[in-house]
């Protein structure tokens, strides 16, 4: 999929662990791990909203479009 989730970069910028984010967002660590590793098939707006709220960022900071050739 050409959509890449850059959650790991944002976590590193905010110096936050996945478990900490999981507690604050209310999404389980395994699910966040699926999202972080790019195995997720989709992201709900509600999840994206919570992530943006906790990490203090925009949806565009968490997602990027990489055409297949560039990947």
């Amino acid at each position, binding site marked *: 999929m050409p959509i890449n989730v850059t959650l790991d970069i944002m976590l590193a910028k905010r110096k936050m662990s996945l478990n900490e984010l999981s507690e604050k967002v209310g999404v389980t660590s395994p*699910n966040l791990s699926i*999202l972080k590793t790019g*195995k*997720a*098939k*989709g*992201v*709900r707006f509600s*999840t994206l909203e919570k992530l943006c709220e906790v990490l203090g960022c925009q949806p565009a900071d968490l997602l990027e479009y990489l055409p297949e050739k560039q990947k």
Partner: protein
Amino acid sequence: MKSSSASSLLKIVLAVSAAALLFVVFWCFPAYMRHVVFVRPDLAGWAFPMEAYIGLMSIPVFACIVLLWQVFGTLSGDNAFSMENAKRFTVMKRLAIVDLGLAALLAAFLLICGVTAAFIAMCLTAIFYVGVVSIIVFHVLAGLVRNAAEIKQDHELTI
């Protein structure tokens, strides 16, 4: 109805079907052949090969019953919509095709030998009908379960 109850009920139906099939293959058909041999002693040599062939034709049906048992077993765990079950339905479709082929061979052989008894024609017609319906049903179910499994997987991987 709870899925565990549905699973148990369907397994009971399968067990009864398996018992009925065993009864037909190992009691009814040999009894019919004994009757045929009694009426036509010249056909005595046909009895064992015909019983063996009917036994051979019952193998794919028993295999389907085993596969359906496995599918119904997944109902209780709410895991019916899986790729494994889609593959099982595909295998069942192939087994039905094999059985239909065996029935067609038997029908051709009997026709060549001039056996055109109404009872045999009726039984073969019933076998053909059940075979064709089974192939269509298993083909449709395999596709539906595969689609449902994909949707389920997408849903589970939507965070």
